């Protein structure tokens, strides 16, 4: 995100319209829902960690523009920062199903669907993109193995250093 100027992007008008519509619906529902006792407001799953990449109001309105901007950066420029990537959203906001595995977008509890269903906005992202993080066994195994290797390497270097000290 060189300069982080995603908000300058003039593209993605449809996305903006969608986002505005979503906000409008949410606001309207918030104002009248309680009175009328109608359809309950969506409760999108909280992400891991303490805070999202931006505050809630901002995310609610601009998340699609952030994604559109990031997609250009990634596909064309090869910029692969996680912060504003769809992968980042999916990783952080995964919803676990009964079997403990993250639910796919076919499940109504999926983070994206919880709001987009409510706003009657169909999202095409997941026709191509994976709607769940990379399989747990892969993502979990790799860092562990890496950490072990690094720890072993560290121990080895330490041993070498102290060994050399002993020789001296």
């Amino acid at each position, binding site marked *: *995100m*060189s300069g982080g100027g995603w908000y300058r992007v003039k593209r993605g008008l449809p996305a903006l319209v969608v986002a505005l519509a979503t906000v409008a619906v949410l606001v309207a529902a918030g104002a009248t829902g309680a009175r009328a006792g109608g359809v309950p407001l969506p409760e999108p799953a909280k992400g891991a960690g303490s805070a999202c990449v931006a505050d809630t109001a901002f995310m609610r309105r601009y998340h699609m523009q952030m994604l559109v901007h990031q*997609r250009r*950066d990634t*596909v*064309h*420029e*090869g*910029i*692969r*920062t*996680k912060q504003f990537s769809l*992968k980042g959203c*999916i990783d952080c906001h995964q919803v676990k199903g009964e079997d403990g595995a993250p639910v796919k977008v076919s499940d109504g509890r999926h983070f994206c669907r919880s709001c987009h269903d409510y706003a009657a906005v169909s999202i095409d992202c997941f*026709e*191509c*993109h*994976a709607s769940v*993080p*990379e399989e747990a066994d892969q993502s979990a195994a790799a860092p562990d193995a*890496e950490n072990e*290797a690094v720890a*072993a*390497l560290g121990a*080895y270097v330490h041993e*070498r250093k102290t*060994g*050399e000290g002993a*020789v*001296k």
Partner: protein
Amino acid sequence: MSNCSSSCTCGTPEPDERPVDAARRSFLKTAATAGAVALAPGVTLYVVGGPAEARAPDQPVDPKKRWGMLVDVSKCTEDCSACVTACRTENGLGALDDPKIDAQWIRKVEVNDPATGYSRSLPVMCQHCAEPPCVDVCPTGASFKRDDGIVLVDKHICIGCRYCMMACPYKARSFVHEPLSDQKPYAPRGKGTVESCTLCVHKVDAGELPACVTACATEGNGALVFGDLNDPESDISRRLKAYPTRQIRADLDVDPGVHYQGL
């Protein structure tokens, strides 16, 4: 430490610490080209940087580079298709399990000389041309060449017209005919778009080698070399300088990034 390479002096106690460090440094530098090296019993140093050091994730691609590949046809055997299998696994191809409609990013081709009976088997994939015809004909700008020479499809913009498939002299592109599911997070692909070999762009961006190259080195016969064609010091450039190689259909002047040795 006894397993340490004989050329490395790190196992020998040295009176002065500095030469040891220098030796270790040069050893690690050498190791960087090897990929993975056993430093000591049970300690393996995995070097992420295969062809080059990994670019920082927030940095755009380096326009000074041009990624390319060299296929040593004399090493490629007819019965081996490790590259094809690795490509399918890595990029989640073949989900439909129907060879008629499944995407094909790399395929093994047999060439015969009817006059002599000479026959060879070689992999053909997107040739990542410097002047890609697929980019020329694309009406939406979805087909594009990245600054580092990798030719890609921006599937967000692709309308699935398949002009690029017709324009490609190498038959390198595939069209996705059916809805897909369970795609790999790093290789999004979906119905109604055209796709082809990306040189495993997600791996290259992380400083790793394409899956086919790794598979060819480990399971195959080490016939594939990947690297920066613009760097005269890279392995691929040195080989291109040392051996006669050719590009397929060089007469078309599209300057493919994939070169073939012994064809």
